[in-house]
């Protein structure tokens, strides 16, 4: 480490140095709020977690609704990209149970409808068509309806929600929860045409709409058409997502006792768990990849195992075995994963014998595809070599300027929260387009930075750091849930446990804001910081500076906050990586050169609702 007596600093100061961090860039502090940054819709997570801690469930719900549109649905089913990103995993093992806290807000909310836009909404004279009624289209509807657009939504199903209704099983997402949140949107005066399959985009375009949004998802399940026996056993082989839709709409009410589910993703998990509820006794998931590398979320696998489902990994399907015209099982080849030096995996056959597994029915859950048979290829809408529409990643506009895409139909199957995020972006573009503005000239996100100081060394957020380990969400008894496919498995946190879980949140939006003019370089902040984030040192280029810190900053995904040069010639460098947002640096600073300031970030939305919301009486 460099020596820093006044006259010596200049002698050893390297010529190339890091520039002072531009904290005016909205993305700098946004990135510090790891969960929010990782959330495709950038939900202000710590903001609603604090509201839950204060039992202000209605406001917590509204903070969510504003960003992610389906808090009740997502609080149960979200893929939770926020959780692996949670700062907590960098100082201990488990992230905050962000997703399950969201559900607490939804379960305990009061009258939220009064805080939503109220109809009848004055018309702006423009008309939009939404094709498909999944989360992407519904988000576009929610963002554009308050602006006065007349919105027509078409879906071939009998109700809105898309795959949230047809695919996600009721034991994970009760229908009432979905209905309530879909209706919040439809009640904004959306013109719905259910049970209507759109056969021609050209016809729609000729219908006098100012813009069209395509949110038709990735509705085609992959098959194994070439596998021997596929045709002969067709009666007892089903495409997973079609079968799940059949169950959801009550066309399918039972399944045989011995079931094989092919595939290792979440669809496979939903298929096997649904099978258990419809009469499947020996349900086996057979997957090519090793167990640890299956696509399904760890918690989905856990739940499946808990329901006595056998997961057989490293098995590649060879054939459907048919006897007397009836499916009796499947043959598999055993493989083992081999990795090359780049970590790329290959599944190589072991020399063992092929394996026969008995089955009366097989569900194929090996992936989904997009399919656009209803879009004409001569309407100025280009498709790429894989049959996917050419869609701009920022604007979600297709090569036909009137047509926008979002959700699974834009870039292939993802998840609900991604569909919502796409919906917000597409709605902004549609609004700009309809206003005759440049769709690339997008308004900046709404940000706000406010000191949390409440007198000397008091903060308006709870800055203490709880060491509690993640609390577990209780589940209903297996004996009950397996009997009734609609019985929700997870029970949700009770309020007392939820409170304890909220305290695990590190309030990463309480930013450490540094004002160099005030710093007298007493080192107090550096000495007190429990996680050694702060170092006063001679500036250098980033790789060198990272090494020169009290503890080298080796997590390159996390930024350094670098000050302007201080009086002694040094700079203050803060590694954002494991900051606990405990506020001790600011408490021990004699001159308030550090301050804890709450950073609010709201992505650009067409309706630009203003948050924070006004306080609501409980």
């Amino acid at each position, binding site marked *: *480490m*460099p*020596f*820093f*007596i*006044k006259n010596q600093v200049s002698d050893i100061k390297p010529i190339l140095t890091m520039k002072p961090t531009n904290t005016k860039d909205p993305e700098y502090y946004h990135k510090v709020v790891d969960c929010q940054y990782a959330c495709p819709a950038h939900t202000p997570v710590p903001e609603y977690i604090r509201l839950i801690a204060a039992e202000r469930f209605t406001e917590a719900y509204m903070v969510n609704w504003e960003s992610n549109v389906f808090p009740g649905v997502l609080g149960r089913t979200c893929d939770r990209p926020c959780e692996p990103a949670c700062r907590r995993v*960098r*100082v*201990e093992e488990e992230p905050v149970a962000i997703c399950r806290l969201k559900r607490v807000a939804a379960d305990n909310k009061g009258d939220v409808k009064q805080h939503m836009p109220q109809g009848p909404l004055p018309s702006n004279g423009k008309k939009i068509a939404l094709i498909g009624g999944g989360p992407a289209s519904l988000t576009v509807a929610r963002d554009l309806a308050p602006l006065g657009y007349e919105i027509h939504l078409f879906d071939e199903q009998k109700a809105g929600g898309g795959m949230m209704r047809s695919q996600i099983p009721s034991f994970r997402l009760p229908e009432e929860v979905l209905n309530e949140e879909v209706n919040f949107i439809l009640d904004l005066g959306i013109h719905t045409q259910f049970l209507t399959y759109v056969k021609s985009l050209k016809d729609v375009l000729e219908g006098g709409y100012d813009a069209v949004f395509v949110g038709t998802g990735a509705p085609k399940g992959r098959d194994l058409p070439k596998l021997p026996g596929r045709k002969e056993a067709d009666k007892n082989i089903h495409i997973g997502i079609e079968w799940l839709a059949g169950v959801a709409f009550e066309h399918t009410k039972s399944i045989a006792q011995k079931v094989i589910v092919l595939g290792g993703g979440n669809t496979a998990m939903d298929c096997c768990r649904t099978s258990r509820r419809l009469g499947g006794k020996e349900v086996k998931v057979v997957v090519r990849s090793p167990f640890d590398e299956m696509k399904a979320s760890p918690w989905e696998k856990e739940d499946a195992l808990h329901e006595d489902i056998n997961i057989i990994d490293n098995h590649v399907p060879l054939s459907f075995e048919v006897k007397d015209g009836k499916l009796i099982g499947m043959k598999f080849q055993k493989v083992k994963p081999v990795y090359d030096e780049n970590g790329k995996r290959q599944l190589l056959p072991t020399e063992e014998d092929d394996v026969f597994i008995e089955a009366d029915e097989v569900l194929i859950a090996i992936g989904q595809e997009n399919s656009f048979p209803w879009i004409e290829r001569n309407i100025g809408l280009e498709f790429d070599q894989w049959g996917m529409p050419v869609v701009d990643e920022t604007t979600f506009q297709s090569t036909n300027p009137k047509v926008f895409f979002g959700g699974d139909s834009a870039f292939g199957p993802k998840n609900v929260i991604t569909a919502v995020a796409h919906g917000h972006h597409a709605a902004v573009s549609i609004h700009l387009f309809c206003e005759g503005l440049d769709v690339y000239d997008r308004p900046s996100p709404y940000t706000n930075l406010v000191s949390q100081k409440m007198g*000397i*060394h*008091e903060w308006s957020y709870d*800055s*203490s*750091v709880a*060491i509690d380990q993640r609390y577990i969400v209780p589940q209903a008894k297996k004996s009950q849930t397996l009997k009734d496919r609609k019985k929700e498995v997870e029970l949700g946190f009770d309020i007392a446990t939820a409170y304890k879980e909220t305290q695990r949140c590190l309030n990463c939006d309480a930013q450490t804001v540094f004002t160099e003019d005030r710093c*007298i*370089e*007493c*080192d*107090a902040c550096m*000495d*007190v910081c*429990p*996680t*050694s*984030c702060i170092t006063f040192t001679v500036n250098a280029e980033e790789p060198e500076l990272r090494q020169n810190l009290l*503890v*080298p900053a*080796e997590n390159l995904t996390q930024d350094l906050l670098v000050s302007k040069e201080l*009086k*002694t010639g040094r700079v203050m460098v803060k590694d954002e990586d*494991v900051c*606990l947002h*405990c*506020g*001790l640096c600011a*408490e*021990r*600073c*004699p*001159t308030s050169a550090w301050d804890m300031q709450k950073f609010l970030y709201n992505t650009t939305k067409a309706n630009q609702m203003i948050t924070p919301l006004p306080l609501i009486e409980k």
Partner: protein
Amino acid sequence: MSYLKPLFRHPKLPKNKLGYTQKEYEGSLSTLCAGCGHDSISAAIVQACFEMSVEPHKVAKISGIGCSSKTPTYFLGNSHGFNSVHGRMPSVATGASMANKDMVYFGVSGDGDSASIGMGQFVHVIRRNLNMVYIVMNNGCYGLTKGQDSATADQGSRSKAGSVNPFQAIDLASLAIELGATFVAQSFSGDKQQLVPLIKAAMHHKGFAFLNVISPCVTFNNNPGSTKSYDYVREHIEATSTLDFVPEMPEIKTNYEKGKSTRVAMHDGTLIQLNKLATDWNPEDRVSVANALQHARTKNEILTGLLYVNTEWKDLHGTLSTCSTPLNKLKEAELCPGTEALKEINAGYR
């Protein structure tokens, strides 16, 4: 206000030879004013003890009264401690050392505690060359009692309220050298680069090691016109040398400029490697040190770094020829050798 430090630490915190991280050397969260220099000195002691892999239970911290004397609560929370009476830390330290010579003793005091009420004790503990590290956290005022000028406040220094100190300052480092202290260093709380190796060297010195550390009182003595403020000290600091404390006899790798490099071997085989910045100064020659200090004073400079070291003189245990086993480890058999032995001793006096 936070009164507890979060328990999480950086997951990549380095470990020392004992397998401990710095956390095992920390104390409770300081209740001193935010920005107090004393806290930086505490942090330097933590760092030095961590890096030296000192076993925490083999350290005792003894202090008097004052903000400075409160600091032992804020470092080495796993070590022994005794917060004694104003100015009386040396007596307690002497007693403790007599009972158990095998411990590292940190005496922590302030300028008020040492240069006023405790002056008599300070002088005598130097005279006895007690094996201890004696740190004065020197802020030129009585911080704890709201910032009155202390005996180390410089003549002409202006207090926060505007009054000018009419009295001459007691220069503790010069005094210690005059009295024959065997290790004397001066430093600044805001310069851990210098302070940490000094503390390490002091811990390895067998005898009385005195560290006078200028430590700004942010609340009562950090105003313009004060000579103990962060700004003033940074403007007027002059280091005698840059130094490294070398725990084991190394091969000589660095080539210092001829005549500028000095090494001092300590009793236990450790080394202090000095790269001299000041000329006409030899850390093993008392006269040259006294001169250097006088010169600096006339130029309004604060001379920091290792000033003087003498490894020849015996410490108190050596002078008194105490037995090699610590007194508190002697058993009844050794302490009461029996009537026959007593008779023999008595016979010796006849």
